[in-house]
């Protein structure tokens, strides 16, 4: 939707702004309008409440389910029907191998998803948490940062020692990085840097 300076934002635009998906002139125009429009401020507060609530609840559902296992099982049942004994034997072998693969696959739980956002105030830095010793995916909201082709990310423990480092390119104003080995329990800081050495942002992360 195009926002004219003297018209209210529609639900779609509010939702996209709330999710950090607005950029460029559209973002500029909306934020300028937002500064002088109480109705859009109220509507945005409602959109933030909805998006924040649905994200948190969705993260719970996502972590409980194993979304990658189901399609593989479905594919097994979709195999073409063999003609003759040879085909049947091949199918049996294939099913056995498939079952073994699935059992192996089930043994590894999907990584936890950790949302790191900056819009929740300075007095609540410990919102994000993840289980100890388990892999997790960090999803960082880059809203408000300068747009760069890539960012460097490091995780330091409470004493400031670096325990993880990686670089990634953003997508949809978000940075997604997998910490495949997980971290021991404790408190950590997730720091985002420009490709040089400039520190852009820091988030708190509790590993329990």
């Amino acid at each position, binding site marked *: 939707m195009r926002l004219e300076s*003297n018209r*209210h934002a529609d639900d779609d635009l509010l939702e996209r702004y709330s999710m950090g998906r607005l950029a460029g002139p559209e973002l500029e125009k909306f*934020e300028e309008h937002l500064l002088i*429009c109480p109705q859009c401020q109220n509507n945005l507060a409602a959109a933030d409440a909805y*998006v924040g609530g649905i*994200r948190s609840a*969705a993260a719970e559902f996502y972590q409980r389910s194993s979304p990658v296992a189901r399609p593989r099982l479905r594919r097994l049942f979709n195999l073409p029907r063999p003609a003759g004994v040879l085909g049947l034997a091949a199918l049996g072998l294939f099913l056995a191998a498939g079952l073994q693969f699935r059992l192996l696959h089930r043994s590894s739980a999907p990584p936890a*998803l950790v949302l790191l956002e900056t819009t929740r105030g300075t007095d609540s830095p*410990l919102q994000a948490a993840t289980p100890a010793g388990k892999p997790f995916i960090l999803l960082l909201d880059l809203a408000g940062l300068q747009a760069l082709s890539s960012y460097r990310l490091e995780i330091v423990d409470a004493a400031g020692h670096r325990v993880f480092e990686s670089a990634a390119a953003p997508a949809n104003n978000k940075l997604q990085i997998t910490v495949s080995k997980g971290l021991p329990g404790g408190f950590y800081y997730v720091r985002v840097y420009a490709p040089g050495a400039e520190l852009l942002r820091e988030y708190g992360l509790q590993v329990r």
Partner: protein
Amino acid sequence: MIVTGATPDSSDSREAAAQPQWAELVDRIRQNDSSGLEDLYRVFSRGVRFYLCRQLGPQDLDDKVHDTFLIVAQAIQRGELREPDRLMGYVRTIVRRQVAAQIEDNVHSRRHQIDLDWGLAVHDAGSNPEQTAIQQENQEIARKVLKSIAPRDREILIRFYLREQPADQICNEMGLTETQFRLLKSRAKARFGELGKRKVTKRLPPF
């Protein structure tokens, strides 16, 4: 204050209030006319407050709003705003700079605290109790919404809101039309609104 006229289609419910004439307002501020400063504050104070609160939280909000207005007014009086019609954009730039500076300040002070004594860096995990309660309520309502819908619909919402997949990708992979996708989203949102009507609308963030 002088205001510009509304758009020709004034029956549109989405039409917002007419905007002030920025050049005239800027001129009065430049002349140190107190009514200019009052109008500047009246027009922008709620929005600046809202923006700062949303980005930085309610802590020291009054001081931050005051600092922002001081910067804007002084810059206008020094003649730094060369295009008065761009006042809204100018205020936005100042507010964004304030937010960036505050975040940078928080980061550096936290790093400094780590150097002195890392124990100091660990803040109280409990945020503003009211905010926490509101967030928990919203999450609970959203949980009810997600529980009440079909697994396939839930997957669509998870893909969009959590995994942040683009709408067209979701539609392609889940065999949906754009209308079906929008309808699903708006139904879920309406359900969220119904369930939370009493609680959420009465407890919007303090700004």
